[in-house]
């Protein structure tokens, strides 16, 4: 019996179970659920919309191919993130690219978060621009640790798993990354 039958909002484990039983279309649930964070990871890594699109697509295809290796009981997103991160690293190694992401590629202020031009929203936008710029100055392992912890709101254990680190090392990355980010933001504004 298909584990997704009659389940409007299946969790990742149920979806993976359905895929392993031959329901290929169930994979679309995972793609829809995680394409945004993976795509944004690739954008941060490459700075190119086209490269990020290709890498995101390839990451999901690789994850599908490797799904039989996925350990039951683990969280899918950190596992997927690890695949994406490794794929992006290989891509950058071959292309010898940096992790810099130009802000103009991010189209800040054009999305639904900024419908108006009121003073408060403009200030908020400016803060996010600074934040993006500061994040770009961080080494990518610090940056990804912070993004996973505070944006994706993963537990420290899952951050460690996604970055293939020990728990203590992941905590250190988040702590130092945050301190460094704060230092960059404060230095920029003095």
């Amino acid at each position: 019996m298909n584990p997704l039958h009659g389940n409007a909002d299946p969790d990742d484990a149920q979806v993976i179970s359905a895929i392993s039983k031959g329901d290929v279309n169930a994979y679309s649930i995972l793609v829809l659920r995680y394409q945004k964070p993976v795509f944004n990871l690739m954008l941060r890594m490459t700075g190119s919309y086209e490269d990020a699109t290709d890498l995101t697509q390839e990451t999901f295809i690789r994850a599908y191919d490797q799904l039989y290796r996925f350990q039951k009981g683990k969280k899918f997103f950190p596992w997927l993130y690890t695949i994406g991160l490794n794929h992006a690293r290989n891509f950058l190694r071959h292309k010898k690219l940096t992790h810099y992401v130009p802000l103009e590629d991010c189209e800040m202020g054009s999305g639904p978060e900024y419908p108006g031009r009121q003073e408060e929203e403009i200030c908020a936008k400016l803060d996010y621009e600074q934040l993006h710029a500061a994040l770009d100055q961080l080494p990518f392992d610090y940056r990804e640790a912070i993004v996973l912890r505070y944006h994706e709101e993963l537990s420290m254990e899952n951050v460690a798993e996604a970055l293939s680190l020990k728990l203590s090392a992941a905590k250190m990355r988040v702590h130092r990354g945050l301190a460094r980010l704060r230092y960059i933001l404060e230095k920029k504004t003095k």
Partner: protein
Amino acid sequence: MKNKKPEVADPETVFASRSNACTSDETTDRIKNMIRDMPQIEPPAGLLRSVMESVEARSVPLWVRAYRWARSPRTVSFNFLYLTPAMVACALLVFLALPLHKKQNGNVVLNEAKGLIPVQIAMDMPGAHSVHVVGSFNGWVPQPCSLEKRNGSNRWILTLQLQPGRYEYAFLVDGKHMPHPDAEFNQDDGFGNKNTVLALEKEDDA
């Protein structure tokens, strides 16, 4: 009068002006909140379709998936506490099965090889509570070579299966070392005790 230039919010000062008004912890919390609410870029609309088209094209048959699953490494974790009942059960089973295996009808097999010669060791020992035999055939260890007392008699008997050869042995009667009382050949063991000498030959040689 000179017109005053209108003030424009300088992006470089917005964070500073706000952070100056905050304490250290509040600034860090504000950074965390900003990261949490950081807007993200929407992926291209066709991404899902292109992924699913590739995935459907790569769909593998059931037997390949089963083969991959069987070949894939997996981590097995266990807790020693969970093993305790199983280990106790195993130890109990071995403890119970060993005497049954080693000793059947008083017949102790000390060597599984072919060409074994059955040797019955018997002695009369009234009043004894336990009689064991130790010798060069069992490494001078009394287990599992305990003699059995025949019902209604004072005779203790044990049958061994031994390879041809020369052996020395002695009895432990209630823990006390003594040679076979009816033996033809006894030999000093160098520690003040005597051992009985047993010489076994192949039937052809006899």
